[in-house]
């Protein structure tokens, strides 16, 4: 028999181990046995495997008793119960704080690495709002009353009416009459247009 024919008929290591454990039957068992007859050195390997198996069986630890199994199971259940020890709660709080801090850092840092480039940011805005959200209320033009403004800004108004300052109509002398004044020096100047003038307005005394 040539070398390559010898290699092709050699049982696999799994077949040899099964033969050594007595787990091969039928034609497979016969084929391996025939091959071992022709290869005494391989038979030695099989015997060594069997010796190892015997040693394993002879030196293996005894199975735990039923009581031992019950004790172990009971201990497992006790460990699985939620502990109320304050020491553990504190460590739990520390762990949660650490996780929260890590999440915050990740939220701050991640966008720098995960955000797409500016060129791929979608330009189309979201046009439809969720149906449950109401739009912001906006005043109507007639609801706005201008109280104070620069008259020169009248043209900039888009709502409400600008303060009417198209004409400043002044009182006349016949119209005005001072009834009472706390400062006796206050005068109603006899000018073309009557005006109340602070005596010190022009540096007077």
């Amino acid at each position, binding site marked *: 028999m040539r070398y390559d024919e010898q290699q092709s008929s050699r049982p696999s290591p799994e077949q040899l181990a099964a033969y050594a454990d007595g787990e091969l039957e039928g034609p497979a068992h016969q084929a391996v046995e025939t091959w071992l007859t022709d290869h005494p050195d391989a038979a030695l390997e099989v015997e060594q495997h069997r010796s190892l198996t015997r040693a394993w069986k002879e030196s293996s630890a005894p199975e735990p008793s039923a009581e031992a199994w019950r004790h172990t199971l009971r201990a497992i259940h006790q460990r699985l119960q939620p502990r109320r020890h304050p020491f553990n709660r504190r460590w739990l709080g520390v762990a949660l704080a650490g996780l929260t801090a890590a999440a915050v850092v990740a939220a701050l840092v991640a966008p720098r690495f995960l955000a797409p480039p500016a060129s791929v940011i979608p330009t189309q805005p979201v046009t439809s709002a969720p149906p449950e959200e109401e739009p912001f209320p906006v005043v109507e033009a007639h609801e706005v009353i201008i109280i*104070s403004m620069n008259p*020169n800004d009248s043209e900039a108004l888009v709502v409400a009416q600008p303060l009417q300052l198209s*004409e400043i109509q002044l009182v006349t002398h016949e119209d005005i009459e001072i009834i009472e004044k706390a400062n006796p020096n206050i005068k109603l100047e006899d000018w073309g247009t009557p005006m109340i003038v602070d005596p010190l307005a022009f540096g007077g005394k």
Partner: protein
Amino acid sequence: MGMVHRSLGGSWLVVLAWLVAAEAPAAEDLRVSVVVIVASETDEKVDPKLECIAREVKRANKNLKGFRLVHMVCKSIPPKVQETFLLIDKQEVGITVNKGADRKNRVQVRVAPPLLGEITYITPCGKFLPIVTRYRPRQDELLIFAIRVQPCDGGK
């Protein structure tokens, strides 16, 4: 069907009247307008709306050359209630309309200008009365303001 239409139409009129009444100010409230003016000794530009005031003030003080409108404030206030109007640089004036327009369309006003005592006067409604103060926003400027009271409803 005709009765239904009429009742609905009447209901709408009631609602409309209520809306108009709700939006309109109280009948006795008076609308006070205050125009804030700054006269300048350096800037010679005169706002066209202030030509009359500028002409008269210049007579008293030829150093004042320019007159500009700072802003205008309008408020609706009830009679005998003082309202404060902001002028310029946190300067304020308290204005009280003691009486609304009488049959001659004249109103009685009490005003407390900055750095000046209270003044009570009678003036026609719908016209501005200028008041020249001594306050100087800047060294070369002088504060002037004018008051107008409306409406002129003849005491109705």
